[in-house]
């Protein structure tokens, strides 16, 4: 693999040194000071090259079997300017193979995403995951130990004076442990526990160096084979003791080896007990909990449940989902490194589409913002220019289409930070995305058919999915589009607007959406498609699954209000805390939540795992036209938590409602109420809790919010909700939540 050549060389040398004096001498001179550095400034890759596709791993006979590795290697990255400064960089990324049809990972320095996984509703996911990162290529890479402090937040030194963690953050809400990871299967409706979509796991890097990693792949596969067989028969395990004894023993031995050899304050083998891993696991196992730390490898085995009204309240929605690293403290950095991949789950939706379009070509587009050091702001630097947006590892790639062809684009916004608004296509001969508004007749047209991996109801296909409707993909959002090429051959540019919010308080100093820029180029050429293609008509639109019916008012068991802070690290004025459950729901109930945003300059993208939700109502104080008046000195016009709140039917979205798993919370607006009061005591009593006064001026911040409904069904367990601007999640804007059983334990004593 060319991309990892530098890594392989290093490991080979390491082995040679251990083999004998003669070999050592040869290899020492081979590794001379004249050897070129692995990371260096290089010419920037050309733009408008063909769109790359990540290798695909498909399920067979109801089982998605894959080996997924996180590895590191040298890849070529561009600076924020996209074409002025590029460098080869050590990056951490996913690669994978189909055990039944193993093929080498593509030899490319392009930072392509991980393998595209393709399964079908009803399948069982069986993935053996390996963490094979060489920690020596990255700073402060371990959660405990190597950082050398009990705090273990990433440490940095700058200018010889300032030392500390980024932003003076404290554990666990700081950047830390970036070579420890796990996998979040974003969009899956499955168990969040044990070997399911469990983001509370910490999978540590393997011990040793390639090719002598511990555990080895062959060892792990052999020891886990009986586990997967058992999982096929009886589902995911409940307890650690359900795992094969040999696997339990191996994990114990490896964790113990780490504990007794890891460095501490620059000295190996002196790790304090409080920083050791096995004692933590041992304690959890004794409590019949799933152990948090896994060393080198972890099996994922979980169903993608097919809806069966006799057994389930909901099923897995077929659609475009994705997977990414999700270890708290390193999610943003690892997603910025490229630890993402697309997860396509097929079902009746696909059958219906392909029935109408027998030759429908699919494109999988993973949007990324790639970087190895993307957070200078957290270290006292200036606000960084945003990293450029790439698609499948290339800037402005070319998508080939035939005249008149309709393709299906499965789009994932896998960026760690920015939302991407699709605004229009234009002919490449025009100024590149320089026009402020779409051309009257966009040459390439689209219609949206699914959101966040859930197909639209045909009623929403007519409106939400109307031709060329602008769509804004917040980080983690997905959209399936039907894209239709014009009959006229030519090159057409897709213009997008990067943003942290489309509507920003005019008084805010940050947060303005950027000017339109190029995401990709469609090159239309060749023979026109025959027969002619067009957007799928309503009558042929995929049938809507019964389990995705709207969450009715009558189902609502409980209401909640959540407030995302104006900054970057609190929900309900609290940072994430280990073990503290912030929201507890009862299994198989539905709830209605109002999710608020105090920020005037950014729409925190709200994301919750396991169950999707529907947006019923939007309150956007920064919208140009208010459907109902907002009076900043009358909280009944803006605070939905008040019992006297005046509902506004004009803000309620028409049913059927679209399903989402990530939604950007509208921004807040700061109103000057100095004409009413200039000191807090002078303000009307009802306004005082909302008002801030200083220097004879008072203002009220009116939060933006949405109202959503969700069903917490089919799966108990602990998981998380969080902001999907992932640096916010890492720094504390996350809550641990729990769905508990609705059954009463009943035993006789």
């Amino acid at each position: 693999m060319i991309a990892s050549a530098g890594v392989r060389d290093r490991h080979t040398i390491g082995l040679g040194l251990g083999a004998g004096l003669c070999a050592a001498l040869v290899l020492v001179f081979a590794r001379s000071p004249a050897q070129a550095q692995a990371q260096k400034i290089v010419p920037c890759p050309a733009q408008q090259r063909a769109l790359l596709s990540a290798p695909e791993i498909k399920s067979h006979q109801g089982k998605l079997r894959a080996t997924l590795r996180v590895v590191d290697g040298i890849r070529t990255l561009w600076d924020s300017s996209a074409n002025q400064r590029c460098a080869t960089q050590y990056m951490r990324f996913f690669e994978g193979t189909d055990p039944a049809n193993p093929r080498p990972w593509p030899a490319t320095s392009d930072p392509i995403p991980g393998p595209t996984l393709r399964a079908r509703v009803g399948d069982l996911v069986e993935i053996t995951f390996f963490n094979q990162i060489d920690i020596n290529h990255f700073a402060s890479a371990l959660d405990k130990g190597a950082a050398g402090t009990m705090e273990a937040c990433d440490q940095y030194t700058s200018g010889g004076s300032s030392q500390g963690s980024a932003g003076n953050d404290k554990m666990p809400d700081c950047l830390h442990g970036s070579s420890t990871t796990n996998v979040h299967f974003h969009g899956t409706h499955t168990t969040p526990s044990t070997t399911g979509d469990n983001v509370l796991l910490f999978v540590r890097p393997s011990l040793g160096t390639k090719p002598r990693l511990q555990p080895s792949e062959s060892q792990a596969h052999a020891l886990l084979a009986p586990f997967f067989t058992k999982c096929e028969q009886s589902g995911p395990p409940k307890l650690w003791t359900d795992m094969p004894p040999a696997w339990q023993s191996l994990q114990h031995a490896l964790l113990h080896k780490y504990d007794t050899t890891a460095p501490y304050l620059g000295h190996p083998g002196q790790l304090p007990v409080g920083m050791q891993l096995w004692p933590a696991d041992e304690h959890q196992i004794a409590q019949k909990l799933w152990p948090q730390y896994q060393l080198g490898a972890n099996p994922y085995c979980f169903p993608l449940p097919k809806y069966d009204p006799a057994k389930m309240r909901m099923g897995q929605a077929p659609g475009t989902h994705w997977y990414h690293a999700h270890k708290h403290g390193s999610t943003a950095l690892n997603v910025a490194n490229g630890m993402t991949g697309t997860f396509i789950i097929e079902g009746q939706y696909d059958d219906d589409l392909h029935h109408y379009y027998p030759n429908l070509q699919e494109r999988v587009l993973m949007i990324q913002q790639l970087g190895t050091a993307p957070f200078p702001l957290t270290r006292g630097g200036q606000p960084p220019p945003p990293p450029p947006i790439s698609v499948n590892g290339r800037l402005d790639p070319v998508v080939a289409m035939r005249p008149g062809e309709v393709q299906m684009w499965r789009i994932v916004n896998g960026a760690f930070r920015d939302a991407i608004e699709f605004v229009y296509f234009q002919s490449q001969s025009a100024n590149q995305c320089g026009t402020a508004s779409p051309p009257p007749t966009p040459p390439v047209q689209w219609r949206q058919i699914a959101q966040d991996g859930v197909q639209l109801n045909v009623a929403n296909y007519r409106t939400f999915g109307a031709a060329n409707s602008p769509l804004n993909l917040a980080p983690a959002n997905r959209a399936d589009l039907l894209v239709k090429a014009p009959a006229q051959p030519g090159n057409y540019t897709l213009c997008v607007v990067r943003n942290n919010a489309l509507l920003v308080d005019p008084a805010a100093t940050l947060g303005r959406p950027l000017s339109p820029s190029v995401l990709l180029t469609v090159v239309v050429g060749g023979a026109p498609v025959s027969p002619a293609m067009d957007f799928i008509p309503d009558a042929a639109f995929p049938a809507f699954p019964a389990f995705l019916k709207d969450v009715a008012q009558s189902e609502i068991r409980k209401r909640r209000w959540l407030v995302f802070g104006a900054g970057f690290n609190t929900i309900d004025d609290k940072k994430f805390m280990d073990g503290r459950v912030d929201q507890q729901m009862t299994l198989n109930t539905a709830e209605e939540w109002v999710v608020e945003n105090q920020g005037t300059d950014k729409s925190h993208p709200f994301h919750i795992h396991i169950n999707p939700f529907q947006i019923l109502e939007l309150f956007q104080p920064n919208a140009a036209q208010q459907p109902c008046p907002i009076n900043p000195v009358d909280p009944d016009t803006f605070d939905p938590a008040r019992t006297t709140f005046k509902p506004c039917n004009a803000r309620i979205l028409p049913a059927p409602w679209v399903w989402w798993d990530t939604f950007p919370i509208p921004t807040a607006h700061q109103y000057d109420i100095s004409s009413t009061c200039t000191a807090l005591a002078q303000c009307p009593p009802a306004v005082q809790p909302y008002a801030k006064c200083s220097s004879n001026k008072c203002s009220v911040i009116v939060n933006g919010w949405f109202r959503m409904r969700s069903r917490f069904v089919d799966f108990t367990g602990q998981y998380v909700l969080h902001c999907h601007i992932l640096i916010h999640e890492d720094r504390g804007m996350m809550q641990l939540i729990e769905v508990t059983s609705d059954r009463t334990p009943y035993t006789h004593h």
Partner: protein
Amino acid sequence: MAFTWSITIVKHSGAPGFTYVPKVLKDVAVGDEIIWTNETDQPHWPGAPGNTKYFMANQIAPHSPSTTFIPSAVGTLTYKDSLTSGDPGGSIVVS
């Protein structure tokens, strides 16, 4: 956006028994991140003249990476191992 750069400390036959790859790290910009990776069997502690902790707070254990150093100004930074006498050291060119 910043880049990340590595300086590897490797065994070497001449005195003092190790060296740096690259010996002169170029192309670094203000705000980039730099780490040292110790591939030897001994601890090392790259430090500035008169300031052991200029680049990192603690020594680097054998076969381990350092914490992150972020240059804050343009110039050439020189360093030597604070734990080993006779180390000719290396340099970082920040431009």
